[in-house]
């Protein structure tokens, strides 16, 4: 297979997400978290958070609006019928609480061909309203040849 690497280095428009209590509760419930810091503002404040705090993996919720358009970008040109989500990594900074506005920017970090497969790697960086980084993500998608 021959893959187009023209999109490497392309940065996509930032996406802003407003974090709310009910969305954190919904996510925490789906994942089976039961610590009151994810549900009860009082418990969260007692633990030192501004408000109900999100589980770290909630980052996929507030990053999706930035990463989705990057994955679907025609210049990137991934064939979704042959694509799998191969690997994922996150490094967390400041915790994310209800009331935060998180801005995420995604970049196409690399496109490489190995063993007749295309490896498409995207990076996302998310910051809160104070400009502090909340998470940095590395999203690896693999497209089979054929």
């Amino acid at each position, binding site marked *: 297979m021959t893959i187009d690497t023209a999109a490497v280095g392309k940065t996509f428009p930032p996406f802003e997400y407003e974090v709310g209590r009910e969305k954190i509760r919904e996510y925490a419930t789906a994942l089976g978290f039961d610590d009151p810091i994810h549900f009860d503002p009082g418990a969260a404040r007692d633990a030192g958070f501004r408000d109900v705090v999100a589980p*770290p993996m909630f980052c996929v919720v507030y990053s999706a609006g930035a990463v989705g358009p990057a994955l679907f970008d025609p210049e990137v040109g991934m064939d979704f019928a042959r694509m799998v*989500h191969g690997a994922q990594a996150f490094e967390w900074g400041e915790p994310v609480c209800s009331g935060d506005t998180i801005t995420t920017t995604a970049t196409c970090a690399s496109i490489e061909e190995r063993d007749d497969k295309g490896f498409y790697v995207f990076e996302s960086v998310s910051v809160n309203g104070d400009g502090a980084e909340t998470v940095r993500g590395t999203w690896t998608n693999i497209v089979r040849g054929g």
Partner: protein
Amino acid sequence: MAAEGDQIPELAVTPDRYLPVRYAGASGDFNPIHVDPEFARSVGLPGAILHGLYMMGLVSRAAGAIGDGDPRRLGSLSVQFRGMGFPEEEIVVSGTVAAAGEGQLELDLVASQGDREVIRNATATIRE
């Protein structure tokens, strides 16, 4: 703090039939291979499959529990997705402390359904 070589407590979860629908709502990922068994079968899958990021979320729970579930203490998590996960089958996340020191723990984790690994080569760092 845990010591190098320690096993971390196993996390066992059996997602019910409608879990992928609730996770789709929670995450915003409504890819039909997760929420529409008929569609999933039409593209050659045995049925609706679990979201990889849901399974990674379970790995984050198991790893984070070592840091008392405090979101400030999970420093990083990196996983490889392998194979498909299915609702109504138990997922077991297990792991060990690979290294301890310098104010943090490094964990190695794996998530399995029966003898199939669904997430492997997972590594996490826990801040002291």
